[in-house]
């Protein structure tokens, strides 16, 4: 028995020694959290991942938020009618704010680690200018995210630091939209404006122009016209931006880096990013669209009076008989029959024009109109109107601030068709119900109107988000 016992012990001993090392496996195709955030290269990779987050959150939702519920489109038989008939539910695509918070997490990660790396031995060579510009971008992108959240969902939970371990408090309740605006979006943007390297102006990144444009947009949302006008002047004060000429208007969407009007556009390369989802929604070669172009838009652009508007044929494919192809984001590529050839939805590059001068210029016109400076308003409006190939408005037609306001809204609708702006324009001007209800009722007599419950202007929060965080409260009445 003794001999046998020794055998057992020997076996056991050989097993135990060396086990600890044997059982340690390091990930082979990832890097552990502790080994990352050491060098300038890590920051560059982190910045790229943050913008990739912006791409992902815009891929589908930018359109769903900015155009999906508006009179620019009507849901086709392949889409979810809920968008068009004010029937959003807590499961509708777009109600999940996770993609936005993923970007926020990446921005927070940068805001935490960039100063530490910059102060470390390895980070000495980065320099204050570069590291500040990294921070400016993180602040800018974070503000962009929260600005979207507060406009679409109202209040939202505030995360200013990255979440990185299971022990950390994770159930955060929603702060109000006002809090988000005043304590997060505006301070972040002001921080970013201070930190940004004013020599950097690549359109693919939220450069100083994008930050100032966002500041103006945010103040417009607050109806704070003096501040909006101030930041417009700071934007134009960069002396970088001017309207794209009529002939090359399309460049804004197919080559924004070559246009002096582009302020901040999203880069897209389907070979590494996959296709932009929006293509499958409104114009891809391999699938039917989820949306039809609304009659409002279709009849405007196809009426004889507006034949000169160069934006129509460059935005909408009038040859698509079921009215479901938006060609705005693609270069002209015709087949032998003269019909546009669309990329497959998984091979589509869409350079979302997040901010371009025309947008800010018309916002400036809106601010002017709201501050009783109608001359400036008409002037600026005409800059866009005339560029589109149309005759200038005169005071004969734009007799008062209401007509100007309507003309501005209409101009923005035509100019920024499918660019994710219309919904915000309607909300900002308080005309969601008056514009959308009649159209909705005409097509769907039993639809519930915005007038009957204005709370439905906000989107519901997705059920999965609510489930995962018991501290969240749904937007009433959803």
């Amino acid at each position, binding site marked *: 028995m003794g001999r046998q016992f020794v055998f057992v012990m020997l076996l056991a001993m050989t097993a135990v020694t060396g086990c600890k090392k044997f059982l340690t496996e390091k990930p082979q195709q990832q890097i552990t959290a502790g080994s990352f955030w050491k060098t300038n290269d890590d920051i560059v990779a982190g910045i790229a991942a943050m913008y990739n987050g912006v791409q992902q959150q815009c891929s589908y939702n930018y359109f769903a938020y900015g155009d999906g519920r508006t009179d620019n489109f009507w849901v086709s038989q392949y889409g979810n009618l809920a968008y068009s008939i004010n029937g959003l539910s807590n499961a509708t695509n777009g109600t999940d704010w996770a993609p936005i918070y993923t970007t926020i997490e990446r921005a927070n990660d940068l805001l935490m680690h960039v100063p530490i790396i910059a102060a470390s031995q390895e980070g000495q060579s980065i320099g204050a200018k570069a590291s500040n510009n990294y921070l400016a971008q993180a602040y800018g992108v974070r503000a962009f995210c929260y600005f979207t959240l507060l406009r679409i969902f109202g209040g939202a939970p505030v995360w200013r630091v990255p979440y990185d371990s299971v022990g950390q408090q994770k159930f955060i309740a929603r702060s109000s939209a006002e809090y988000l605006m005043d304590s997060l979006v505006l301070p972040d943007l002001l921080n970013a404006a201070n930190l940004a390297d004013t020599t950097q102006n690549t359109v693919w990144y939220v450069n100083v122009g994008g930050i100032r444009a966002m500041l103006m947009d945010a103040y417009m949302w607050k109806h704070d016209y003096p501040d909006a006008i101030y930041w417009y002047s700071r934007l134009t004060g960069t002396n970088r931006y001017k309207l794209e000429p009529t002939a090359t208007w399309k460049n804004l969407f197919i080559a924004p880096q070559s246009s002096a009007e582009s302020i901040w556009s999203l880069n897209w390369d389907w070979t*590494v990013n996959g296709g932009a989802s929006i293509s499958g929604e409104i114009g891809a070669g391999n699938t039917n669209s989820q949306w039809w172009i609304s009659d409002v838009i279709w009849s405007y652009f196809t009426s004889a009076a507006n034949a000169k508007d160069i934006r129509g044929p460059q935005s909408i494919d009038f040859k698509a008989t079921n009215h479901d192809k938006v060609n705005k984001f693609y270069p002209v590529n015709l087949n032998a029959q003269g019909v546009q050839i669309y990329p497959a939805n998984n091979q589509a590059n869409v350079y979302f024009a997040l901010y371009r001068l025309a947008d800010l210029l018309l916002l400036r016109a809106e601010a002017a109109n709201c501050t009783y400076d109608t001359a400036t308003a008409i002037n600026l409006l005409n800059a866009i109107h005339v560029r589109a190939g149309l005759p200038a408005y005169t005071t004969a037609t734009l007799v008062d601030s209401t007509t100007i306001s309507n003309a501005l809204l209409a101009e923005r609708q035509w100019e920024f068709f499918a660019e994710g702006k219309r919904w915000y324009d309607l909300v900002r001007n308080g005309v969601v119900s008056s514009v959308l209800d009649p159209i909705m009722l005409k097509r769907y007599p039993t639809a*519930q109107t915005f007038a009957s419950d204005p709370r439905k202007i906000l989107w519901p929060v997705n059920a999965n988000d609510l489930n995962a965080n018991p501290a969240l409260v749904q937007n009433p009445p959803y």
Partner: protein
Amino acid sequence: MKRMLMQAVALLLVATVHAQTTRIKIIGYVIDPKGSPLAGVSVTVKGTESGTLSDSSGRFEIRVHGPGSRLVFSLVSYETKEETVGKRMKLEVVLNEASSSMNDVVVIGYGTQRKRDLTGAITTISSKQLEERHTSSLGDALQGLAAGVLVTTAAEPGAQPTIQIRGYSTFSSAGNTPLYVIDGILSDNMSWVNPDDVQSVEILKDAASAAIYGSRSANGVIIITTKRGVEGKPRIGVQYLHVSGELAHKLPQANSKEVRLYRNEQGSSGVSTDSLNPSYNADNDYQSVLTRIAARDQVDFSASGASKNTNFYTSIRALDDQGLIYNSYAKSLFFRTNIEFSPSSRFRYFGRMQFGYTTGNVIDEGNTIFQAFQRPPNYALYNPDGSLTGYISGRRNPLTVVLDQVNLNQNYNGSLFNQVDFTIVPALKLTANAVATYTETRNQQFLPKILSSNNPLTNSGSESFSRVIDWQAQSYLNYSRTFGGDHLVTLMAGTSAESSQTNGDNESAVNYVNEQVLTLNSGTIVPNGTTTTATADSRASLFGRATYGYKGRYLFATTIRRDGSSRFGPDNRWGDFLSASAAWRFSDEHFMHWSAGFLDDAKFRFSYGQTGNESIGDYTAQTTYNFGNYYYNGISGIAPSTTLGNPTLQWEATTQQDAGLDLSFFRSRLLIVADVYIKKTNNLLTQSPLPAETGFSNYEVNYGSIRNRGFELSIIGRPILRRDFDWSITYNLSVQKGVVTQLNAGLPAIQGNSADAAGNAAWLLQAGQPLGNFYGWRQLRVYPYDLSNAYNAQWQPLSPDFDQAGNFSGYNFQGKAYTGPVHSLYGKGVKLKGGDVEYQNLNGDSVIDNNDRQILGNAQPKFFFAVMNTMRYKKFSLSFTINTQWGDKVYNNAAQTLDNYATSNIIPQPDVILHMWRHQGDVTQVPAYLKTSVGDIRMSNRFLEDGSFIRLAYAQLNYTFPIQAAHKIFAQAANAYIYGSNLLMWTNYSWYDPELISTNPLQMGQDNGSYPRRRELGIGLNITF
């Protein structure tokens, strides 16, 4: 060993009887019921000491006194038989296998045990039972053979079945598969085992049996032992089998006339009505076009033999399985060589070499068999010039998909196993083994231009490789000794280690310049989808077992295992798994003597044990940053994985209690095995969602529990046992119910379809409820009139009245005129009309929404049941198996996708086209055609069907050629058989087959229109030389 001993004893007998005077020389053969010769059978003349042994061809010679002499034939594991010689000079004697011999040795983890000494719930399946099934995979052959083991066979060529022992124990699909131990090697699957190589399969069902395999044994263990050579003349076996299969039944599908009816309803979107366009002028029966007579050809070769100190077994199998759908096939080749060598009585060497190759074209089910139902039958399959069409109006030509789309798999697996047994002292044996396994898989996919939906047409494809290298080493000591004649003690202790490394790559490409050459020099590589991958894991273990038996009457066993896994954080790496079991053979007690005449053996067993599960990702405990998917403006970004690492993760633990009763009546002619068990899994490894605001989507946690309770009953009987006719029958019944007893609050309660207006299946996951609860709306009716959407204040439906002119004249409630306020229901913000579906309004508000959902049924069968029969009359034997699953619901998503009107070029089933609501007053259950849904198509009971079925699963009629006939072709034995599978099925289910493979326990029982199961008929010939 036992057999050799018997032979030796018998030889001694023979030696002593030669002196006797005997007159008549009798020559005979002893064979088994299948016609194989039996060697070493002891043949004695009753009442004398005269006797002999049969040789390797089963032949014997003996001298008897006269016609009245009786011969007695006996062999271990076979029933003893007596025959009167009569006037015959040549005898052919068939020995039946004993139903179950209590002295049989059963393989348990790291050792063996006599069956009579078992204390746990173990089912043994013999090679004989498996051979009768003639399935292409071992898993399929196990169906119905063991109570508590649910085998769901797959229909596609080359596909493996799912096996589940005693219910779902966790939420992940990987965590619910049993552990396979193939000749001592731990494995996740048994797809590389040739069923004909299997000597026996032991299924360890309860925790006390399985716990010796600790970490991965929560779902039971299936131990597979392959064949070895048997002493005697070498045996060479050749078998050929041809099986033809056909589509068991066709489903109704709209013809072009019905399509036209449907197009009328569709109105403007009903395109493709152009009667002059050849593309739209066909009337296809797609099911006939796509399917063919399936054919399976199988050739087996095996050779085995043994001498005093070596034995070998080697086999080759070649299989060519041409599936029901054109161009779907699986081919495989399996090689195995088992060698044992014992140069001395103390040392024994085992070598096992195995190599397998499988290849097959996987048919895209969604684009073929399912597309065949979706695509309007009037769309052409061929162009006027005879070439195949591609994409018409958004629908692919399924025939072109079948013929031109490529999804080719090639898999290679080889393993090399070495083991030495060293007997240190007679009671103590050391075993050490090591195995290395290499698995490579290659997949090639290609979608030709003709099937492209792009404009202009583009082709695309991909190629991927993966390589897994796995090694394992085990060493253990077995000690076994009987003290004082009555006290049997066995001890086992050992250690093992294993590690596996996986590397893979995947390349995607588009725009192949030539569609015949699919290597990637022909295509342009796409960075998105071109990657290499690498991952590794390792495990180490210590284990031991002690058993004690007193006179075989009181039996005790305990096991311990300590497992370490690289998947957990450094502080939680190790898990301990304990078990204890006891058994009481009360038939040996004095007070049971009264029953000795009919009850041979009776044993009560009880066991308790813990088993574990570690089915999580290799690095789930660590927070990682990933690359490759976060490009922006030409720079590859690095971002945190959306799954947060959780270093506090630990083993998921399953505890199981089992009580069993083994009864043997009438000299083993009736065996009853019954077990009840409670299996409880705690600390479930589940993905728990993190608030989306953290930027992460989930993390793995230990939270939640599932409790399974069940009852298993096996009855094995041999009601008739005569010289020319015997009949044996086996019943296996399994009843089981699993309930989620504790649930992570953050898990989404709705699994699957969470939208409020889509038709695919949804499940409710809730504490206190079983897994697999279908959750949705209950359809009451379709409103006959617009005015039918009217209710009183209690939400009771009002009926509209009409005057003679047909004008609405008011409402009545149960026959009485109703004048109160009228309420109406809204769906998705819209008031419902005639032709819309009325769903049960559970919460009594005016809106049909998520709050009106309810549990509609459950996807798990209430019980499953198998009856296996074997009848032999002289040289004919007939065996068949009937399989039953009862009480489960299946969500017919295949029909739902056709019938939901969502896509204008998908044609509903003819029944729907004919019965859809069209006019005010139509009474039907099929809603009106609506281009945009207001919620008429929801996850509802409309497509939920009863999945119960009774199936005649296998049948075989066998004829054994007389030995003399076999000898004419220089064979030792030969038999021929007709074989059939899936011959008959009774079910109310309306799609192809209610037996579904469901790998995800949270989303089971949804039929998406999978590959149809075939009805097979085959013929085979088996010759042993």
